[in-house]
């Protein structure tokens, strides 16, 4: 055995020893190589596959539909020549098993010409199962914790309102501290429940026609006390005409409230908060600009992740679950919208929510 063939054998052993599935296809869509891992996961025999079209491996589901061959992600990679990694697909085998997979697909390029792709995949059914258990656990635990916490809120407000008799100044002060701690606790529990609900995939939007100017105006007026306490100047540039949009009013209000309250929290007293609503063909946008502490580039990249708290001089003073922006992003995405961020440290931040009018 010469050196080069020994090397080829070694490569083959490496590929065959993988538990993960791996196959290659050429530009005619034929399977040119498939490893044992892929055959085992898909329940196939090598002789049934080599030289056959990749559609005979399995069907590909993008989470909604079985895809026609031309829309398989392998062809997207051939066209764009950009590798993709995704957990959005599942493979449907000949015996109708639906396997959720994490796939990585890369183009194989020889002399600047794509000659095929290599696709590696692994079964993530177990990860999905664990994730679902985690979501159910958070949901259950939060529910169980919220009920007694709501009870505490009720009795604390009764005492504050004098139902148990006149309170001494010190007693009132302690009671207020207890009340605000309990409010924060409830806020975190509600965020956790929202996340669990959003991640369960059972979240349904209740869309109605709303006027976007009005929605933003209401959010500002509900924060008025908070704004006055901080001595902020709030400017609202409404769209000259009403913008009618099909949205889940409560959910988008949650999103806007989140950005408004963040702007107040992270802007030093005396600062300015500017809100703007603008119409743009099929879409509209709501932007919220503050003259606050700003967010670093690194901070922006983590901003919409779960439990992320951006380090800045105010974040230790300002409470929060680190879930608000994650929830906001998920809710906007459910409406097929996006959120953009521009920020400069020490100068301020602009968040722009872009949403389609059709919902």
């Amino acid at each position: 055995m010469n050196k080069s063939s020994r090397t080829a054998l070694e490569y083959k052993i490496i590929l065959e020893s993988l538990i993960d599935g791996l196959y290659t296809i050429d530009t005619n869509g034929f399977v040119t190589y498939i490893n044992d891992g892929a055959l085992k996961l898909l329940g196939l025999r090598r002789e049934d596959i080599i030289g056959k079209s990749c559609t005979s491996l399995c069907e590909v589901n993008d989470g909604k539909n079985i895809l026609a061959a031309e829309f398989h992600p392998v062809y997207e990679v051939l066209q764009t020549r950009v590798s993709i990694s995704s957990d959005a697909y599942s493979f449907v085998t000949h015996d109708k098993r639906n396997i959720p997979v994490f796939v990585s697909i890369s183009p194989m390029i020889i002399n600047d010409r794509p000659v095929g792709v290599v696709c590696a995949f692994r079964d993530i059914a177990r990860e999905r199962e664990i994730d679902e258990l985690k979501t159910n656990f958070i949901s259950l635990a939060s529910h169980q914790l919220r009920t007694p916490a709501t009870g505490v809120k009720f009795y604390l407000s009764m005492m504050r309102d004098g139902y148990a008799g006149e309170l001494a100044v010190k007693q009132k002060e302690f009671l207020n501290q207890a009340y605000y701690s309990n409010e924060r606790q409830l806020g975190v529990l509600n965020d956790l429940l929202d996340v669990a609900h959003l991640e369960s995939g059972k979240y349904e939007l209740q869309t109605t026609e709303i006027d976007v100017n009005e929605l933003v105006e209401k959010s500002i007026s509900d924060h008025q006390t908070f704004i006055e306490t901080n001595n902020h100047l709030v400017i609202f540039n409404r769209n000259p005409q009403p913008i009618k949009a099909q949205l889940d009013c409560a959910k988008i209000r949650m999103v806007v409230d989140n950005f408004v309250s963040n702007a107040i929290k992270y802007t030093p007293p005396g600062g300015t908060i500017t809100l703007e609503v603008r119409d743009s063909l099929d879409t509209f946008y709501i932007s919220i600009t503050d003259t606050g502490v700003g967010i670093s580039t690194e901070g922006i990249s983590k901003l919409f992740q779960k439990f992320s708290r951006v380090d800045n001089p105010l974040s230790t003073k300002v409470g929060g679950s680190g879930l608000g922006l994650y929830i906001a992003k998920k809710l906007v995405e459910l409406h097929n919208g996006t959120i953009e961020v521009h920020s400069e440290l020490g100068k301020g931040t602009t968040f722009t929510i872009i949403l389609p009018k059709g919902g």
Partner: protein
Amino acid sequence: MKAFVLYGTTSGNAEFLSQFVQSGLEGAGYEVVRKNVKDADVADLMNFDLVVLGSSTWDGPKQEGLSMKEQSAHVQGRLQVDMRAFVEKMDGIDLHQKPVAVFGVGHYSYTYTCNAANLLEEAVKKANGKLIVETFRVTDVPDLSVDAIETWASSIYI
């Protein structure tokens, strides 16, 4: 003489072969514009003396209970997705007997191999274009057809 080569490509084979259609035509003295059909406008067709359309063939998801003919008409052996959209836009236009040539890309192992060529021919006739040369069908790996398609293109006279 100006020639317009339009290709609809998904895996890159039709695009690869279109380069040799271009070199063949240039060899025959044409001034050639070659474009991916997704970037082209139907109105552009009128600006050229010769139009060459090429597309690969794609199967949609099989539908149970249809005959082979019905499969062909509905879901199997379709035009490449961008060419499909372009041909839909050609509906209702009049090419006034403009010279057109067609090439199809497929592989012999597929049931509806090169059916895209048949569908393009139909679309050209419907739009009152004039097929001036026998359609070129690639039914094997593209590399084996490079010389043949270049020769085919160089033999197109209008």
